[in-house]
């Protein structure tokens, strides 16, 4: 069991990785990435039972799908820091001939990536399919997925929500990153997804949980609850409250840092707020 201090240390380093990766190529999506750093640290270092010796079919292990593929920097950092590939490879992010494409891809055979994502709205369907595959195989492990809150505007999600409930896919835990921001502004301004997402999901037949995405006690406790609710006939939906850009002071409070890279001074400022714990790549 990884203790919370260790998880905090890991997530701080992962946030540093993200900002340095995005800064190096002057492109990428830092805000949502560092906002989800604690979730990824908990998932890859505590919650999931997974093997870093990569098996595409994920037999007899938990598996994770990132639907909002634009937060690839934090996904790559989590995979590297947990041992799927060398941390030094993070410096190739978004560069020519890299396995670390702008959005996750399988074509370059990066260990840990099982499906391309980036075109939004597809990941929950994919995760539901993979969860169904586990059921067919008699594999008791769990399929996890993360999606963005703006992403829920894509209609395919609702097809997937209907399907997973109808098929009683109860080995599926979907987390939505509720940071309230998307490219053009706040989610409420762009396309009101509503304060009643919980009611909508319950009406669709899902079990709904809440957690604070910047509090490891909350993340671990909620994830433990979610695991315990598996096998009871319903897919599980976790509403995770986060702040885009957390905890870098100038990156929080708006959508500005969704898809822009920090300049040299901004990077230095941000890194000064994030302790280097495991050594920069």
């Amino acid at each position, binding site marked *: 069991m990884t203790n919370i201090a260790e998880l905090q240390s890991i997530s701080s380093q992962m946030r540093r990785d993200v900002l340095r990766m995005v800064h190096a190529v002057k492109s990428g999506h830092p805000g949502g990435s560092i906002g989800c750093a604690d979730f990824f640290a908990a998932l890859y270092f505590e919650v999931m039972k997974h093997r870093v010796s990569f098996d595409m079919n*994920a037999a007899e292990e938990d598996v994770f799908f990132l639907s909002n593929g634009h937060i690839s920097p934090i996904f790559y950092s989590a995979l590297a820091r947990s041992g799927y590939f060398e941390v030094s490879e993070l410096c190739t992010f978004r560069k020519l001939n890299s396995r670390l494409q702008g959005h996750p*891809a*399988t074509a370059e055979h990066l260990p840990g990536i099982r499906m391309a994502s980036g075109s939004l709205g597809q990941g929950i369907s994919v995760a539901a399919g993979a969860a*169904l*595959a586990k059921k*067919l195989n008699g594999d008791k492990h769990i399929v996890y997925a993360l999606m963005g809150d703006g992403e829920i505007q894509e209609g395919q999600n609702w097809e*997937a929500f209907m399907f997973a409930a109808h098929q009683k896919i109860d080995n599926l835990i979907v987390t939505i990153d509720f940071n309230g921001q998307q490219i053009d502004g706040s989610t409420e301004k762009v396309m009101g997804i509503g304060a009643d997402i919980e009611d909508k999901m319950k009406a669709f037949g899902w079990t709904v949980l809440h957690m604070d995405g910047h509090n490891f006690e909350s993340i671990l406790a909620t994830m433990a609850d979610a695991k315990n609710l598996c096998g009871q006939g319903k897919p599980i939906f976790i509403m995770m409250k986060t702040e885009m850009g957390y905890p870098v002071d100038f990156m929080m409070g708006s959508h500005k840092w969704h898809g822009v890279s920090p300049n040299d001074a901004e990077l230095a400022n941000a890194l000064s707020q994030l302790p280097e714990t495991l050594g920069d790549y």
Partner: protein
Amino acid sequence: MVVLALQCLFCEAIKTISSQQLYKMKTFAIQNTKDTRSGFGEGLHELGKKNERVVALCADLIGSLKMDAFIKDYPNRFFQMGIAEANMISVAAGLTIGGHIPFTGTFANFSTGRVYDQIRQSVAYSNKNVKICASHAGLTLGEDGATHQILEDIGLMKMLPNMVVINPCDFNQTKAATIAIAGYEGPVYLRFGRPAVPNFTPVDQHFEIGKAIMLNEGADVSIFATGHLVWKAIEAGHILAEKGINAEIINIHTIKPLDAAAILASIAKTGCAVTAEEHQMNGGLGDSICQLLATNNPTPLEMVAVNDSFGESGTPDQLMEKYGLTATAIVEKAMKVIARKK
């Protein structure tokens, strides 16, 4: 009624063959008339027994796709997806992670245009072992009209890297192709149709992906046909033989990967080509062969295909006649292209 009308249309050309033909065109016995979608249904059912990794998904068109037998015998390996095709394609991609071989079933229109991005990202780009099985392709869907008559699907699918595109010609070949694609690791688009058409290829044939089939060796013109147009090409071959023209007829059941060697070898003999398909000129088989010939052996070529138009309501044979996808049209194009090479 549709079946009877079609039979009548298909037999018409054969009746016109006179005893004076100069070239002996190979004849093909019609075993029966059957829809190619039923070939898919039988193939899928057989796969259910042969390969436990095969699973099937359908978007509320079980009867149309002839999936009933598979569902009856393998209910735990079938998933009703409802009218939600985008979800179906992505779920199929997810099912491959775990080693399953998903066969998705819906009309060709909803198998391609409606779900292009899902196929592009989660199937083709991610190189997943999904078999996209598409019925009611082309004009011969008939009375439902242009909303359902996709004529762009071959083009859409062949443009995707990693995607194999197959359009078999009759019941037996569709069954064989269905069984064969389960043994191929990677994305496949399998296209078939609604109406009953002559079933003339061998029962229980071995289907080799990407291998063109020589139907009649000839010297004057190469006719490359796919899908429902293969039988019409045979009819055309008989008419041409009567006119003293020795047509080579090749069934291109796999549009991608294209059997370049077979096509170039035929062109080396005949020096001109006609392509025939139930699809738009843009993006179809003819388009692929034009590209091959232009870059390897520039050759006069004529196309029998729909010319930048949507379809409309009508019986299948009325539509094929109106849009020029007939044996007569193939004959006319053959005469024209032979004149061009001289």
